[in-house]
């Protein structure tokens, strides 16, 4: 089954210098492991929400605004699409992502017909 992992973290969180070094390294190791296992299909880190733009069309008019769709404490910092045997494997994969140790990883199955 295919799942999308939303990698979410509180932008205001302050990491120690040690963590700032360790987390990107751990994230790279995670990508390497999951790709070698044939689990991670694609994914990317995202620019912060300060660089986000929202687009809506109402009555034929394109409404463009600065900022994210919803003002929440935790923001999507990245995403990964994985192929896992079942939810238990997806949970295991998510729990190994370093952001899950201080942020949240939301596991969403892709819609299947």
């Amino acid at each position, binding site marked *: 089954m295919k799942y999308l992992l939303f990698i979410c973290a509180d932008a205001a969180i302050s990491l120690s210098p040690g963590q700032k070094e360790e987390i990107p390294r751990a994230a790279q190791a995670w990508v390497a492991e999951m790709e070698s296992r044939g689990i991670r299909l694609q994914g990317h880190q995202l620019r912060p929400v300060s660089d986000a733009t929202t687009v809506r069309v109402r009555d034929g008019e394109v409404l463009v605004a600065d900022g994210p769709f919803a003002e929440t404490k935790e923001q999507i910092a990245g995403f990964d699409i994985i192929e896992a*045997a079942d939810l238990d494997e997806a949970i295991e994969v998510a729990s190994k992502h370093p952001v899950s140790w201080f942020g949240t990883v939301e596991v969403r*199955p892709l819609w299947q017909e």
Partner: protein
Amino acid sequence: MAGVTPDMTQDVGAAVTAAFHAEWGRVVSVLIGVTGDWDLAEECAQDAFAQALRSWPRDGVPRRPGAWLTTVARNRATDRLRRGAVEAARLKEAAMLVAPETAGNDDESGIADERLRLMFTCCHPALALEARVALTLRTLAGLTTTEIARAFLASETTMAKRLVRAKHKIRNAGIPYRVPPAHLLPERTGGVLAVLYLLFNEGYAATAGADLMRAGLCDEAIRLARVLARLMPDEPEAAGLLALMLFHHARRAARTDEAGEIVTLEEQDRSRWDRSEMEEAAALLGAARRRDRAGPYLLQAEIIACHAAAPTAAATDWAQIAVLYKRLSDLAPSPVVELNRAVAVAMADGPAAGLDLLATLERAGPLAGYHLLAATRADLLRRLGHRTEAAAAYREAHGLAVNEAERRFLARRLAEVTGQP
């Protein structure tokens, strides 16, 4: 059909009821295993029991009702899938259903495994706790949506939606139908035990409403705990939970008087305790103790075993109970355990020692607004003869309690300490 021995003297209705309690979960779990379709599995299990009501009076009760019911349900599933099979994939599925009709099919251990798979799937942590409880009652115990709704004081529509949503999530999110692998087993087993204990407690002391015991839920929880303990003989906590439930259940007749009023442990008529249930629980503890890996359920069962062993309330070994609560508190720290420890210490070393522990607990704050904290303080103050302070604490507890029987009990105690009728 082989294995059917016509015996018209049997009470067929009772046999079907007994088979329902014993076999429902088994039939459903086998059918989910072969079809992967939860709704189809339930419907075919229902059909099989309806068929039993029709044919058992005529042909007699089969020697192995479980095997008979499983076969009928499986044939029904095959028919339904065949009839509905428009695509080739569906046909293949139907063909697969016929294949396992071979020897060893009725093998007890193989079928038992299916039920264990069903338990772990129903209690998967990716489902909301209330959904886990409802799903366990529906698929494993065979309670109807109406019965589950009544037991949890929810509307039938709400409960039906909850069950549908849970089954959809299992399918759509890919929750596996299996017993978790060894590295996940300890944490997942804890989740299954927690759901069963929650079921039992919900039946034992209703959190709201007038009746203190909803016996049906207790019986179902004990039945399921029995299945789990048998299927996981190497898990001492499974035996511990079953023993704990049996010890509580053994005291059910003595917990309330004829008028439905609460009788405290101290004042219970111990001759009304169910000795056979207590002996079964004690035997379970004896076997589990040898494994030397006491978990929270086993320790709680040990505590009740101390009460059960005392011929009178005065003969209770409170010092030993205080020690057990300390071990429980070290293993699984919780403010409620600390509250119980305070009671045990008060009984062993005097009310003042207990009040000291209570004061520490009250300063920490997690139990603020919990009626049993105020009720315990009231009781210890009453034992010390501090009637005015005790009355204030009883009033506080009375204001916080929800259960009607508990409220009447607290009102009675308040009247005693204030000397008013």
